């Protein structure tokens, strides 16, 4: 641990002064001279055909600069997931029919927000209402209203653009099925027959909102030269500029996503949004900057919240607690557009797979269209729902059979070095240690079953550290300046994850220089190289690795010049505090500044720029025939990631029998994130997820009635406040991941799922029934 100077240390945010002075610039803070304000007219119907839109009087209103309708924009389809099998199904504004309350039908750009809102009121839309379907199980029945018919691809998919030989094909929707996943290994039926005990439970999990404090916003400035500048609330620029370029038909290199601060994301700002296209389209139409800021009500009622799932879990065990078979069946209520469902249904298996070693598995999932708000990834993407369902099922099995809940889990955990059925290897794996620490920290043995209406619960979770999915990989540049300082160019996005600080730590560690001498230029799509983004939990593992490789490349280039200048072999040189020093004679040295000046003067102007890159599972690529034969989100086959983060949580709760009120007394969250780069930031990520998990179980639900969100504001949708936080211990279990930068792997998404399962199980333990007690999680 002590071999590091900056890694695995408490390092303060290098950009903290900007935040505490109110100077950090978020998209909502961007202003331009002559800027227009955009607003979107939204459907009041869940399902209706658009017969006519009359916008003449809106166009005539003083201050209105442009009015557009879905028909004018046409079928420019986009989606979170867009593969040959699952072509994009969403349009920026509804073209022929609306599929959920809140879907955009027209948009206005005007001199002020007030005028834009007035103009919306002047647009007349004639609808023909259609029967709507809200329940996914009803949507699967014969004769249910059809949300979609045939989805015709009208652009190539990202997969095709990057070289997969398969062509996008039309997707005919039958029984409202948006997507299917079937992953199987072993013989589940036989194993159930041979099991000593089989239990099946059904869980209905509603959506919760991300509630990032910054509402979604976009500023677009289309230049008369054909270049588009945008400022977005996002989690990685590749996905955004891909869709902006594709839908506006401009080269991707001419779309510049500017660096902004992003006021929280949690998955909810990862996908491409209609308002982002509309801002850009209106800017192109008016040749003026256009800003669209969504109201909190719009964020709640039109931006996708977490996925709504109905999960059946059937588990077979031997008498002593060994799990021999598990059959999971998910109905994912995707809403009006499928968004991330094909991935989520696959991830729901993949993220639980590293936890228990179950020889016979069937994982069946269906995404089902309904006339509701679409759903998307939220911190864990399918994992929290699955952890809740599986861990609840296991806890009940333990109670039914009188098994020790800790021992039972320890008995079934996988082991370090295990090869998973898809080919991934658990090169680092400290889940057993996480559970032991979480159990010891809560005082499990002393407290379990000792007091009435007090309960203890356990939850587990695992999460990948990036994958080979789009945007696939990251690169970084580190440039030496002639004052001896370095500038890092990385496409990472800041939304609370301290990327500038963490990446500077990595560079300073490699070059053994002061953190002050590392300047970070991040999140600028024009200057920074390709980046996988800060989703897929890939930030540190993939982008951090590319930053490390770039710094190592620069180091080698610098040492090569120093070898010449200091007349000392390269293996006898070291870097110390901004100097290259000979190990045998410490006075024989050259400063970083000297090396830069030498390269500029003597070596033909060599600018000394280090380049690094990293791709998760590099052996998987689209030109590889073998990969193309097997890779599929629907069958879950093929390599997926190189390292899994893991977490175990415990919770102690007290339930008031008279009122059902739940009080969380204590929580312990132990997270195996490999070696933390920034200890404070990692603990912050764990605590953040723990508190978010409290909200998920105790307070939060996006409530819907007949397709309408009925609590679309922060008074009626309650998130945890400072007064509701119990003592929480966050424990870092350092498993050292050999493939990560300095041993690091994922930390931002695992714990939330473990916490949700732990609290739910603790409540059930306190009241001894698996019963509806929380607004968010019902059985």
């Amino acid at each position, binding site marked *: 641990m002590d071999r590091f100077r900056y890694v695995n240390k408490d390092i303060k945010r290098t950009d903290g002064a900007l935040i505490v002075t109110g100077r950090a610039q978020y998209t909502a803070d961007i202003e331009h001279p002559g800027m227009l304000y955009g607003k979107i007219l939204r459907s009041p119907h869940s399902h209706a055909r658009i017969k006519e839109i009359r916008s003449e009087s809106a166009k005539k209103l003083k201050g209105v600069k442009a009015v557009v309708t879905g028909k004018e924009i046409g079928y420019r389809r986009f989606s979170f997931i867009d593969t040959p099998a699952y072509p994009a199904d969403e349009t920026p504004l509804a073209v022929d029919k609306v599929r959920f309350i809140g879907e955009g039908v027209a948009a206005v750009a005007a001199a002020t927000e007030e005028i834009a809102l007035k103009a919306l009121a002047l647009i007349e839309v004639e609808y023909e209402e259609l029967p709507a379907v809200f329940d996914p199980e009803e949507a699967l029945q014969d004769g249910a209203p059809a949300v979609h018919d045939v989805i015709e691809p009208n652009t190539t998919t990202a997969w095709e653009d990057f070289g997969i030989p398969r062509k996008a094909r039309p997707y005919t929707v039958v029984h409202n099925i948006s997507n299917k996943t079937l992953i199987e290994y072993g013989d589940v039926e036989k194993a159930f027959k041979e099991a000593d005990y089989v239990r099946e439970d059904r869980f209905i999990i509603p959506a919760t909102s991300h509630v990032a404090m910054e509402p979604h916003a976009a500023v677009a400035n289309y230049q008369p030269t054909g270049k588009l500048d945008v400022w977005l609330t996002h989690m990685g620029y590749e996905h955004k500029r891909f869709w902006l370029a594709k839908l506006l038909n401009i080269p991707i290199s001419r779309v510049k996503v500017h660096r902004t601060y992003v006021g929280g994301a949690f998955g909810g700002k990862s996908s491409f949004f209609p308002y982002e296209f509309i801002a850009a389209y209106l800017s192109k139409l008016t040749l003026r900057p256009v800003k669209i800021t969504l109201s909190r009500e719009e964020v709640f009622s039109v931006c996708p919240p977490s996925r709504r799932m109905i999960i059946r879990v059937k588990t077979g065990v031997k008498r002593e607690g060994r799990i021999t078979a598990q059959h999971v069946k998910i109905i994912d209520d995707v809403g009006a557009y499928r968004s991330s469902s094909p991935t989520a249904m696959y991830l729901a298996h993949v993220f639980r797979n590293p936890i228990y070693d179950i020889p016979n598995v069937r994982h069946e999932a269906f995404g089902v269209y309904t006339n509701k708000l679409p759903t998307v990834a939220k911190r864990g993407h399918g994992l929290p729902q699955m952890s809740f369902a599986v861990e609840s099922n296991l806890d009940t099995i333990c109670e039914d059979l009188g098994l020790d809940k800790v021992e039972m889990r320890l008995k079934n955990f996988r082991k370090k070095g295990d090869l998973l059925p898809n080919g991934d290897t658990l090169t680092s794996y400290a889940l057993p240690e996480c559970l032991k620490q979480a159990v010891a920290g809560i005082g499990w043995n002393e407290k379990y079953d000792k007091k009435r209406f007090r309960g203890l619960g356990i939850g587990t979770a695992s999460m990948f550290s990036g994958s080979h999915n789009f945007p696939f990989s990251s690169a970084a540049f580190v440039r030496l300046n002639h004052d001896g300082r370095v500038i890092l160019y990385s496409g990472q996005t800041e939304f609370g994850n301290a990327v500038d600080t963490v990446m500077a730590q990595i560079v300073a560690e490699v070059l053994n220089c002061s953190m002050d001498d590392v300047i970070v230029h991040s999140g600028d799509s024009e200057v920074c190289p390709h980046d996988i983004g800060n989703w897929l939990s890939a930030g540190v593992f993939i982008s951090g690795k590319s930053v490390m490789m770039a710094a190592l490349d620069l180091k080698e280039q610098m040492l090569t010049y120093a070898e010449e200048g200091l007349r000392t072999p390269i293996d006898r040189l070291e870097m110390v505090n901004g100097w290259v020093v000979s190990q045998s004679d410490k006075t024989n040295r050259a400063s970083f500044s000297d090396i830069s000046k030498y390269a500029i003067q003597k070596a033909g102007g060599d600018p000394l720029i280090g380049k690094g890159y990293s791709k998760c599972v590099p052996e998987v690529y689209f030109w590889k025939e073998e990969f193309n034969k097997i890779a599929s989100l629907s069958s879950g086959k093929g390599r997926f990631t190189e390292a899994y983060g893991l977490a175990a949580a415990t919770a102690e709760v007290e339930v008031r029998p008279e009122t059902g009120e739940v009080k969380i007394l204590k929580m312990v969250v132990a997270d195996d994130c490999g070696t933390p780069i920034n200890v404070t930031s990692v603990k912050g990520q764990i605590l*953040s997820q723990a508190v978010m998990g409290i909200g998920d179980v105790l307070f939060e639900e996006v409530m819907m009635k007949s397709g309408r969100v009925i609590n679309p504001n922060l008074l009626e949708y309650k*998130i945890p406040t400072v007064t509701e*936080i119990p003592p929480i211990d966050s424990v870092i279990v350092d498993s050292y991941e050999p493939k990560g930068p300095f041993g690091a792997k994922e930390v931002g998404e695992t714990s939330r799922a473990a916490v949700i399962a732990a609290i739910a199980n603790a409540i059930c333990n306190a009241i001894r029934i698996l019963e509806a007690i929380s607004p968010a999680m019902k059985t």
Partner: protein
Amino acid sequence: MKGGMKRRVLLRVNGEDHEVLIKSNRTLIEVLRQDLHLMGAKEACGMGACGACTVLVNGKPVHSCMTLAEEVEGKEVETIEGLAQGGELHPLQKAFMDYHAFQCGFCTPGMIMAAKALLNRNLHPTEEEVKSAISGNLCRCTGYGNIVEAILSTAREIEK
């Protein structure tokens, strides 16, 4: 027009006088951000439910999204931009940095102003008093613990 005629209003913000021509329905946050270009106060809910827009009026915290700009005429308005003096950060700002009391930072200006209001009236707050003072300020990132620590440490620091 909604909000009626425009009126000349004299606002005193961070010790500086500003004359603005505004309609009576303009909120304080709108005028701070759009007319005075003070972008520190953030709008996150628009209904006084989250505290991100907190500024001080005569030393007391208000939701600037729920306050009409003309209501604060003649009063002393303080925003996050006025906290650092002479190039030196306020002790609360330093403590928020030292204690990692923010992640995305969007709630931070409001949170710091709510804390400033507490310390204005109570230099020796207990942990419970700190929690009560920021109970109307939502933070989705930090889990609040580091924020409470930062405020308590500032109180201890000022006392020295």
